[in-house]
């Protein structure tokens, strides 16, 4: 059912190691930790054996916005079995993943700003004692006016959530590139539309959990958690607990998905550690699914106003966009999200002029943050929808409208993003052919439709959150007497297969079988620091570092083999298991090469590092770093839908997606990532939305928060387009986010093709679709009653 094939697109010359189809890189490779996962042996945080462990519990605010007058913990402390009770006063500093926006305390201090915000925590010998202690804590909170929409929080008389943020604006972005007014004046058609997007959540299946052990005798802390960013967690633990970072160890066990929920340190991780210190032992906190929705950090509720100018050819002459995001109660990644929305809005195409105005707003709802496709998903829907609307009015096929705006690499976008490889042309060609677009579109029965959209995403944010001057990625390779090669990496495999990819890369460079490689990942006592698994950075950045480390290891081994064989290193033909003196039958096996390499030095550890070149780190304007990357992935997809006009139900029948991943180091994993990304886009487009009543989540479970089940999930046919990025490891780029963005607009375009209705409000849940159908009927009746002849419905496109 799943046709996956590969193509190679033209691209500029590459200085990375050339590889057509490697022995290991480029091969379909099951995950190196897959056996543990299918046998149940994989230990996730909640599964860890921890010895004598206290139960941690968190008390949450019942008030959406208020001043904390008093938290009385005396009664709770006196309950038998209770070992620790802490509040915000037990922390040394506030936190926040962005250094300029640290405005959140692990337990609220001074004010509470959303319902469910942690305010106190206990550690006890068992659940019963812990629950009793929570019940005995007395909260005295004086309510303040609370705001549950961006508009309410921006009202002139609204109380500020944060003292330094007037108007509850966390970040306002005002950017213009090129002559926008001239661009609109030059257009043959100008159209403007507004769009609305519900807030969505990550919904990773593993519940949040953390285990912390504090050794009072040594003032040492070990934390194991579900994090995607062990290094940021490490820094934040030191900061919030007022500890020296050398006294802290952070270990990432198996992690059951993230999708952005865990790309910033989260309150429960800090609370677990603080409880462990207060109790002088080991504390474990396991959160509920509802807790996960209260911790949130998902994609914000968003309003978009978008205006495009277009020539008859389809060429885009100007873009003018305003985006408002309901950011929730705290900063988190918020300012990055609102910048991403503008940065990636137009950089997919060659456009003449752009104006972007963005507002990130503080509200009394759980904080939003990064979610797969960070910042750019809703903007992509608006852009690709309006592109289709205008193409329709100009009589252009949707493919023609995209092809009229293609980039030719190398290219610098208006906002100073560097494009070195660009597989969109091939992506378009494949989805057009595979979907039977030319022969089928416009000829399908009513209720069935096809829609197209394109998208792109970064292969790692070119500037790290914490700018330290260090390389963007560092990896160690260890080789010892046993001949095993151990990769030491801080990169967090959270199911995306990064450890497998790194093993493949090292095996490829060294020409050794995968079985010779071990990966030890994300234990701060053992592995080099890594910025973490976010912005699809690991394949590109850590992959490049791994290539360099392996090249260095190979150099050491070849040099040693040459010495043993008494020839020059350049005379050695390296073949992994054996090396040979060129033109002779003199050989040395791998074990011999290792023995030779260890003489006089002993255990070998080599390092590889990589940084994004300065020209890919964005421009000089404020906010220019966000969106900058060493390599963009690209995708195009066609979605086929069937719409039931009686119920408003939308069924996705098939998806054809072509993704330009540069080079598929592990085609099996790339397909899996692309399918998962498309499907997650489908969830947001079809059925997922959080909902609040006075700040109280109404859907904090996996039944009411409707992610698609296997029953409504379509076949997803994947084509991997390989544009061979000049900077990517073996030409590779990211594979797990780019294809997400284009699903929702392709769906909206398909629904319009099927029933002639343009949905500007997501998700396309049956109630919204039915309402749009009823609204059209009302308009049609009205037109009939006033005698307007059969003019086309302006909402048709």
């Amino acid at each position: 059912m799943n046709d996956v094939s590969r193509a190679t697109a033209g691209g500029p010359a590459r200085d990375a190691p050339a590889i057509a189809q490697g022995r290991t890189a480029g091969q379909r490779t099951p995950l190196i930790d897959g056996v543990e996962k299918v046998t149940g042996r994989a230990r996730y945080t909640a599964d860890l054996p921890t010895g004598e462990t206290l139960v941690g519990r968190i008390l949450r605010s019942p008030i959406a916005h208020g001043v904390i007058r008093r938290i009385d913990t005396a009664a709770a402390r006196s309950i038998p079995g209770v070992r620790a009770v802490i509040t915000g006063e037990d922390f040394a500093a506030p936190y926040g993943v962005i250094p300029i926006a640290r405005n959140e305390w692990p337990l609220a201090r001074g004010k509470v700003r959303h319902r469910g915000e942690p305010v106190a925590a206990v550690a006890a010998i068992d659940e019963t004692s812990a629950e009793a202690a929570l019940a005995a804590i007395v909260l005295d909170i004086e309510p303040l006016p609370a705001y549950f929409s961006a508009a309410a929080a921006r009202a002139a008389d609204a109380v500020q959530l944060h003292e330094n943020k007037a108007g509850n604006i966390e970040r306002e972005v005002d950017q213009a590139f090129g002559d926008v007014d001239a661009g609109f004046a030059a257009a043959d058609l100008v159209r403007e539309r507004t769009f609305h997007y519900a807030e969505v959540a990550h919904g990773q299946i593993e519940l949040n959990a953390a285990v912390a052990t504090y050794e009072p005798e040594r003032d040492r802390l070990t934390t194991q958690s579900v994090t995607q960013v062990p290094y940021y967690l490490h820094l934040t633990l030191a900061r919030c607990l007022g500890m020296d970072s050398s006294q802290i160890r952070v270990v990432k066990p198996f992690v059951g998905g993230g999708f952005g929920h865990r790309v910033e340190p989260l309150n429960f991780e800090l609370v677990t550690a603080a409880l462990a210190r207060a109790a002088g032992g080991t504390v474990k906190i396991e959160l509920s699914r509802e807790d996960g929705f209260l911790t949130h950090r998902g994609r914000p509720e968003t309003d978009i106003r978008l205006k495009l100018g277009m020539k008859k050819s389809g060429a885009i002459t100007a873009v003018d966009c305003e985006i408002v995001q309901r950011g929730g109660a705290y900063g988190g990644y918020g300012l990055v999200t609102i910048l991403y929305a503008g940065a990636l809005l137009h950089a997919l195409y060659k456009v003449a002029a752009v104006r972007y105005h963005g507002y990130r707003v503080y509200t009394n709802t759980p904080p939003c943050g990064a979610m797969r496709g960070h910042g750019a998903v809703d903007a992509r829907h608006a852009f690709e929808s309006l592109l289709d609307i205008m193409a329709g009015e100009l009589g252009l096929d949707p493919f023609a409208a995209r092809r009229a705006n293609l980039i030719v690499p190398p290219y610098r976008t208006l906002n100073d993003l560097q494009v070195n490889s660009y597989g969109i042309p091939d992506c378009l060609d494949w989805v057009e052919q595979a979907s039977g677009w030319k022969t089928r579109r416009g000829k399908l029965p009513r209720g069935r439709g096809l829609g197209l959209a394109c998208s792109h995403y970064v292969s790692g944010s070119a500037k790290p959150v914490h700018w330290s001057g260090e390389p963007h990625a560092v990896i160690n390779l260890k080789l010892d007497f046993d001949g095993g090669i151990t990769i030491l990496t801080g990169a967090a495999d959270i199911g995306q297969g990064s450890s497998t990819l790194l093993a493949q890369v090292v095996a490829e460079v060294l020409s050794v079988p995968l079985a010779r490689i071990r990966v030890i990942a994300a234990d701060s006592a053992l592995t080099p620091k890594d910025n973490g698994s976010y912005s699809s950075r690991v394949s590109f950045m850590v992959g490049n570092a791994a290539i360099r480390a392996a090249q260095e290891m190979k150099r050491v081994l070849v040099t040693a083999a040459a010495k043993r064989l008494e020839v020059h290193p350049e005379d050695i033909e390296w073949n992994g298991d054996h090396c040979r003196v060129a033109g002779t039958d003199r050989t040395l096996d791998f074990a011999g090469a290792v023995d030779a390499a260890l003489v006089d030095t002993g255990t070998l550890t080599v390092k590889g590092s990589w940084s994004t070149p300065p020209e890919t780190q964005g421009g000089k304007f404020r906010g220019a770093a966000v969106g900058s990357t060493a390599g963009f992935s690209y995708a195009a997809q066609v979605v086929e839908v069937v719409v039931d006009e009686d119920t408003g139900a939308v069924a996705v029948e098939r998806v054809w997606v072509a993704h330009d991943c540069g080079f598929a180091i592990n085609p099996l994993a790339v397909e899996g990532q692309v399918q998962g990304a498309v499907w997650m886009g489908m969830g947001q487009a079809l059925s997922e939305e959080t909902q609040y009543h006075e700040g109280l989540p109404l859907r904090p479970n996996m039944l009411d928060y409707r992610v698609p089940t296997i029953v409504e999930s379509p076949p997803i046919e994947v084509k991997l387009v390989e544009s061979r990025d000049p900077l990517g490891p073996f030409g590779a780029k990211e594979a797990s986010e780019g294809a997400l963005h284009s699903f929702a607009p392709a769906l909206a375009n398909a629904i319009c093709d099927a029933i002639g209705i343009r949905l500007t409000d997501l998700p396309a849940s049956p109630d919204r679709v039915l309402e749009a159908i009823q609204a059209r009927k009302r308009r049609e009746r009205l037109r009939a009653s006033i005698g307007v002849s059969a003019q086309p419905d302006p909402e048709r496109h």
Partner: protein
Amino acid sequence: MTKRLLALTVNGRMREDAVAANLLLLDYLRGTAGLTGTKQGCDGGECGACTVLIDGQPRLACITLAAACEGRVVETIESLAIEGRMSRLQQAFHEKLGTQCGFCTPGMIMAAEALLRRNPRPTDADIREALSGNLCRCTGYVKIIESVQAAAGG
């Protein structure tokens, strides 16, 4: 909470444990029996991650009382590999990438195991129906269906 003796078979082994009347089978398996392969992914009956077999039928351990399993045969993910060899389903989920993060995988495989025992040659629709209570957030289900098909012999 008073405890009573629970006798049952878990993964082919007879067990007798003193359990509280309100102890969930999930907590019994993970805590008392130390079988952490069975996962909790929700607050009760939402996601299917805790699917185990009780007398051969797929059941959610998070909404089943341990005490209700008196005299019954419970099978978890840890039971499938025999003498170190993965079952066909496990092999297929591994090789076809039916697992990414792996957290839904034990429940998914146990639900599929129940399906293949009663229907060794399931259709696409059969697979979708049998796994409709098991949520996966990583794969989009495409490779899960391929994995079950592969285990069933293609």
